[in-house]
C-alpha cells in the first residue's frame, strides 16, 4: 500500500491553476522529497493531502483511504512558517495539539512529557512559548508534529533556523520514525538535504510534475557527467567550450558539467599542462541542485 496516492489532481483558484493534472505516489516507509520553486504548487498539494483543500478534479488517497477528516489524524504537519500560541505554556500548547489530533488528554500529557524530555525542553515545559529561543520553539513545534505518532509526517523546511546540533537531533528522529514505519514527505529548497535523506522525489513546476521517481535512478539516468574538483592555480584550463558546458564555483570546490561525449582526461591533461595543482578530480552524477535548475529553466523556456 502506498502512503499517498495523488491521481490526476487539478486545483484552481479563479483563473490561477495552482495544481494541474498532478499524479504522484509516495511509498510507505519512504522519505519523499516534494520539490519545486516558490509558487510551484507544493503547498497546495500538501494541503490537499491534509484535506485542508479539496481537489477540483482527481483523487487523493492517504493510507489507502480517500483523504477525509479521518485521514487527517494520521498526518503530522510541520508548517514552514512556525508558530505556536505565544501566550500559552509549552506543555499546554503541545497537549492541545496532540489532543486535537485525537489523543486523549492523559495520553497526550504523557507523550508530550516524554518528548520534552527527549528534546531537552523539560525545564521549559511550564514557560510561555514567547519566552523560548527560536531554536527551542522550533523543537517544540516539531514535537507538535510527531507526538501523535502519525503514519504520515509532512515536514516543510524542518531544518530552517536550527543549529547543526539541533538539526542533527531532528534528523535522527526523522530517520528513527521512518524505521518504525512512518512515511515522511519533506518539502525543502535545500537540495543537499534531499540528496542525503530522500528515497524518492517529485519536482513540481507551474503545478505540474516535471520529474518524479526514485532519486538514485533519476541521478543515474543523467550519468556521471560532472567533474568535481579541488585545485590550486589558474582556472583557465576549464575554458574549453567544446568540452565544458557550465562551471559552478563553490569556493573550495568547483563543479564542471561536461558536454555529452567529452573526455574528462582532456581536462586533466590541460590542468597538468597549465601547472595547476589538482588535489581532487572526481567524475560524479550531477548534483540534484543542477538537475533542479535545469528542469525548472527548461520548463520555463
Amino acid at each position: 500500500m502506498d502512503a499517498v496516492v495523488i491521481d490526476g489532481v487539478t486545483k484552481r483558484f479563479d483563473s490561477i491553476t495552482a495544481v494541474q493534472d498532478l499524479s504522484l505516489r509516495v511509498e510507505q516507509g519512504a522519505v519523499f522529497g516534494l520539490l519545486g520553486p516558490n509558487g510551484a504548487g507544493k503547498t497546495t498539494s500538501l494541503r490537499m493531502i491534509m484535506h485542508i483543500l479539496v481537489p477540483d478534479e482527481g483523487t487523493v488517497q492517504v493510507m489507502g483511504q480517500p483523504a477525509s477528516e479521518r485521514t487527517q489524524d494520521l498526518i503530522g504537519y510541520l508548517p514552514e512558517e512556525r508558530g505556536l500560541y505565544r501566550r500559552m505554556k509549552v506543555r499546554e500548547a503541545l497537549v492541545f495539539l496532540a489532543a486535537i489530533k485525537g489523543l486523549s488528554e492523559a495520553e497526550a500529557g504523557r507523550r508530550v512529557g516524554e518528548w520534552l524530555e527527549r528534546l531537552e525542553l523539560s525545564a521549559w515545559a511550564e514557560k510561555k512559548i514567547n519566552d523560548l529561543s527560536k531554536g527551542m520553539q522550533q523543537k517544540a513545534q516539531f514535537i507538535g508534529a510527531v507526538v501523535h505518532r502519525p503514519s504520515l509526517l509532512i515536514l516543510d523546511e524542518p531544518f530552517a533556523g536550527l543549529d547543526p546540533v539541533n538539526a542533527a537531533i531532528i534528523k535522527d528522529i526523522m530517520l528513527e520514525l521512518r524505521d518504525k514505519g512512518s512515511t515522511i514527505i519533506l518539502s525543502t529548497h535545500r537540495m543537499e538535504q534531499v540528496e542525503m535523506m530522500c528515497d524518492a522525489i517529485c519536482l513540481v513546476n507551474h503545478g505540474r510534475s516535471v520529474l518524479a521517481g526514485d532519486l538514485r535512478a533519476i541521478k543515474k539516468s543523467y550519468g556521471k557527467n560532472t567533474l568535481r574538483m579541488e585545485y590550486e592555480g589558474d582556472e583557465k584550463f576549464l575554458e574549453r567550450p567544446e568540452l565544458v558546458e557550465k562551471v559552478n564555483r563553490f569556493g573550495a570546490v568547483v563543479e564542471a558539467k561536461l558536454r555529452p561525449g567529452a573526455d574528462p582526461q582532456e581536462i586533466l591533461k590541460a590542468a597538468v599542462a597549465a601547472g595547476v595543482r589538482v588535489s581532487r578530480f572526481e567524475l560524479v552524477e550531477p548534483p540534484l541542485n543542477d538537475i533542479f535548475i535545469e528542469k525548472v529553466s527548461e520548463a520555463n523556456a
Partner: protein
Amino acid sequence: MRKIWLIVKREYLTRVRSKGFIFSTIGLPLFSVGIFGVSLFLATRATDHTLKISILDNLGGLSTQIAAGLKGNLPNGKPHYEIVKILDRPASEEDARKGLNDQIRAGQLDGFVEVPKGVLEGNDASFYTSNTGDFSTLGTLGKAVDNAVIERRLSDRGVHVDDLPKLVHGVDMTMVKVSKSGETEEKGQTFVVGFSVVMVLYITLVVYGVATMRSVVEEKTTRIVEILASSVKPVYLLAGKILGVAAVGFTQYLIWGTCGMLLSGYGSTMASAMRPGASLPNIHVPTSLLVYALIFFVVGYLLYASFYAALGAMVSSEEELQQVQMPVTILIVVAFILYPIVIRDANSTTSVIISMVPFFAPILMVLRIALQTPPFWQIALCLAISILTTLGVVQFSSKIYRVGILMYGKRPSVVELLKWLKYT
C-alpha cells in the same frame, strides 16, 4: 464534536487565566464605581473651608436677607460662609469695589456679591471672585440674592413675608409608570435599567466581537491555523472559537452579576441602617427583560462575532485590523447612538423600524423591552429577522473564514471575497 470542545476549552482557559481577563473583571467595575465615587466625593468636598464673602449692596437694605440665605454648615461643622463685611450704599461704588477687589487679590477675601441699584428692575447682580470655576457657590449666592430681591418686591407691594422659601417653593412632578403589572412610581429607574442594558450590550458586543477577531488573527499570523485546519474542519474551528469567547463573556457577567447582587444587598442594608426610613430608589429588573436580553445577546453576539471572525481571517497582520474592523464597529456604534430615539418614544414608528434592523436589534429591541414592552408579535418578528440574518452571516463568514485563514499577503477586494464564497 470532541474537537470543538477542545477548541472551546483552550480558548476559554487561556482567556480566563490571562492577566487581561482578571484585570478587566476586577478593573472595569472598580473603575466605574471609582469614577462615580470620586466625582461624588469631589462634589461634596468641593469646599472644605469657610468662604469669606463680603456684600456690596448699592441699593441698600438687602444684605441682611442675603446673609440669611447663606446660613448652613459644611460637613465638618464649620459654617459654609462667613460674611466679612457688609457695605450698605457706600459713598462711592467705585472705591468700595476697588477696595474689595484688592482684598481678594491679597487673599483676605474669597469673593463679594455686588447688588446693583437697579436690581429690583431686573439688573444683574455680580459675584467677584478669584475662583471662577466654583459654580456651586455661584448657585447658592444667586439663590440668596434672588430670595432677598423677591422678598423686597413683595413687601414693596404690601405683602408681608415671614417664610419666603415655603411660599415660593414650586411643585414637583412625580412620574408614574403604568404597565400591565400595575402602577409604579418612576424615579428614573426605567431609564437607569434601559441605559444600563444598552451599555452592557454595547460594550459586550464590541469587546467580545473584537476578542474573537484578534484570536483569529493571532492563529493566522502564527500559522497555527494551518495545523488546526489540518486537524479540524474550519467551521468547527470557528464555532469553537466563538463559543469559547462567549463562555468567557458569560463568566465575566456571572462574576459581575453575583458581586453586584451581593453589593447592592449590602448597600441597601447599610443605607437603611444609617438613615432609617430612607430607601434607595427601588431598581427592579423584570425577569422577562433578563431573558430577552440574554436571547438577543446570544443572537447579536453570534452575528457580530462571526462577522468579526471573517474580518480577522481577511488580514495577515494585527496592524491591518484597525482598518477592516471599522465597518462592523460602526454598525454597533450606530445602534448605540440611536438609543435616545427609542428612549424618547419606544413605540414610535421610527423606534419600531430601527429596532427591527437585525444589526441594531440586539441593543435597540432590548431597550424597547426595557422601557415599554412592545407587542409580542414585534419581538417575535424581530427575533425571527435577527436569527435568519445571523444564520446568513454565519454561513457567509464561515466561508470567508475557511478561505481567508489560508491566504496571506494582499487583503482581498470585495470582488475577490465574492469569489472566495465559491471556493471548495
